[in-house]
């Protein structure tokens, strides 16, 4: 088999290993969706009435506004478990063993990325289900849903490579869990929960130009019919940029980090 053929085969083997880890240690996967679901319940039921009144549309209208933001938050939340599991894995002796074997080096990382991708997308589906049960109503057809899913998938790929890099450079699991924290906060300091227009100057500019806002606006537009404008292209640009930078960083850090 050719070298790229082995890379694919080895990545598939590593993916099987990571899926088994998720299955054996499900609390990590559960924590990924726990936080977004709590936020959904909290903002939908506790603050939703007031926020909905302020935005015009009541609680039901606010839940429809909120769910796209929560979906983006779910993706960001997945990056913490990715960083922690990569970090914990690298401290295990088995990674040193992999390095002494004739396998495609990057397969260990791609295995993690694919595993996290599956885990995060499962979380997105679950959170969407909770949103629908709480009264989220979408005006989108199949194309809109697929478009939103595609963008969330792209965001997941980007953030996962970034968090793999964070997991490699972190010196211990605690650090690995703290480093992606800003990613969790960004959807809140953006258009995830309230429109950026309601924020004071300074914060408002930050909120409008940070990467999560165009992603949120595009997902919201695709699912609920709000105007998208040029947000979709900016969103894709951010995702590709973050993804490529994360991939290169992760690869360089993994090759440099030869001390098991």
């Amino acid at each position: 088999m050719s070298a790229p053929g082995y890379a694919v085969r080895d990545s598939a083997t590593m993916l099987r290993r990571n899926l088994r880890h998720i299955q054996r240690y499900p609390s990590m996967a559960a924590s990924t969706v726990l936080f977004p679901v709590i936020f959904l319940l909290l903002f939908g039921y506790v603050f939703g009435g007031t926020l909905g009144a302020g935005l015009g549309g009541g609680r039901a209208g606010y839940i429809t506004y909120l769910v796209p933001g929560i979906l983006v938050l779910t993706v960001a939340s997945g990056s913490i478990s990715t960083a922690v599991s990569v970090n914990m894995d690298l401290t295990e002796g088995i990674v040193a063993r992999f390095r002494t074997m004739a396998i495609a080096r990057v397969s260990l990382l791609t295995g993690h990325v694919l595993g996290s991708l599956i885990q995060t997308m499962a979380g997105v589906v679950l959170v969407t289900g909770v949103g629908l049960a709480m009264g989220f109503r979408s005006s989108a057809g199949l194309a809109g849903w697929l478009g939103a899913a595609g963008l969330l998938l792209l965001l997941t790929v980007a953030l996962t490579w970034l968090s793999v890099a964070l997991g490699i450079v972190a010196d211990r699991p605690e650090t690995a869990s703290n480093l992606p924290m800003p990613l969790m906060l960004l959807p809140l300091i953006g258009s995830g929960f309230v429109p950026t227009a309601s924020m004071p100057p300074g914060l408002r500019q930050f909120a409008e130009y940070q990467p999560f806002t165009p992603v949120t606006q595009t997902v919201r537009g695709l699912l609920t019919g709000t105007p998208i404008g040029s947000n979709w292209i900016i969103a894709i640009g951010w995702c590709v940029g973050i993804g490529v930078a994360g991939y290169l960083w992760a690869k360089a850090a993994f090759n440099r980090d030869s001390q098991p």
Partner: protein
Amino acid sequence: MAVMNLSTQNTAPAAVSVTGLAKAFGGTVVLDGIGLAVPAGSVFALLGPNGAGKTTTVRILSTLIRADRGTARIAGYDLSAEPDQIRAVIGVTGQFSAVDNLLTGEENLILMADLHHLGQAEGRRRAAELLDRFGLAGAARKMAATYSGGMRRRLDLAMTLIGEPRVIFLDEPTTGLDPRGRRDMWQIIRDLVAGGVTIFLTTQYLDEADHLADRIAVLDHGQLVAQGTPAELKRLIPGGHVSLRFADAAGLDAAVRILGGGARDDEALTLRVPGDGSVAALRTLLNQLAASPAELAEVSVHTPDLDDVFLTLTGQPQPGPEQEIVR
């Protein structure tokens, strides 16, 4: 460099050959130009105390880290130019267990089989065979996290063997094992060699090197201070002695008079006399003393062992009781 290279005649081609290998971490020199050769199908032991550079040597030779200087060939491949070819023919079992704790023993082996690109059927067959051979068949479906130290080490080695490596590096394979686990590991190593593989092991246990290795190199502060067969190394040091301890000073005095010499220690009330420890020599010695008023409290026979080699070569004693006490 003061390396005592005791024998260089090797008929078998070298499975591992190393010249001038050096490595420093930061400003600290860990390996200071070591050279060695391991004939194919033999066991080579790199012996040394903690911090001597054993693990660094294994990590360099198993392609984990690069050497600063020096060359090495493993199974005919050049270490710096052909690391992938080397990875395909070696197996490494490190000092710290390299098993996946969240997978079962069987899954760990199948993971290795998949990474060696064995077919599914062949992978399962070899996994089952190794589980059986290493006494892990009963625990095959249990997570490795639940394994004891000895089981984990056996699983680790089984994972190394699934790819049928030609050269196996074992970094302190018995450190942390109980005596029984240690004996089991020794037997496994002997069986492997009987199967034709080359073993490069590191150890800080002298008796382990003595029992297992065809050739031993003594590593101290990043330099090889001696190389040779266990017998050759033992020949480096003075012969054995018999140590006699007496009940009182009068007994010691009497013995010195009768035996006409020896190294006496008035504080410990002991007398060391040269002797090979054979029964005949011991009987003669004891008969001589029996005729005297000297009251003998203890006799110990000390045959030369690698402890003495180490002490002679490095000036550092090694722990481990190697004396047989005869009361």
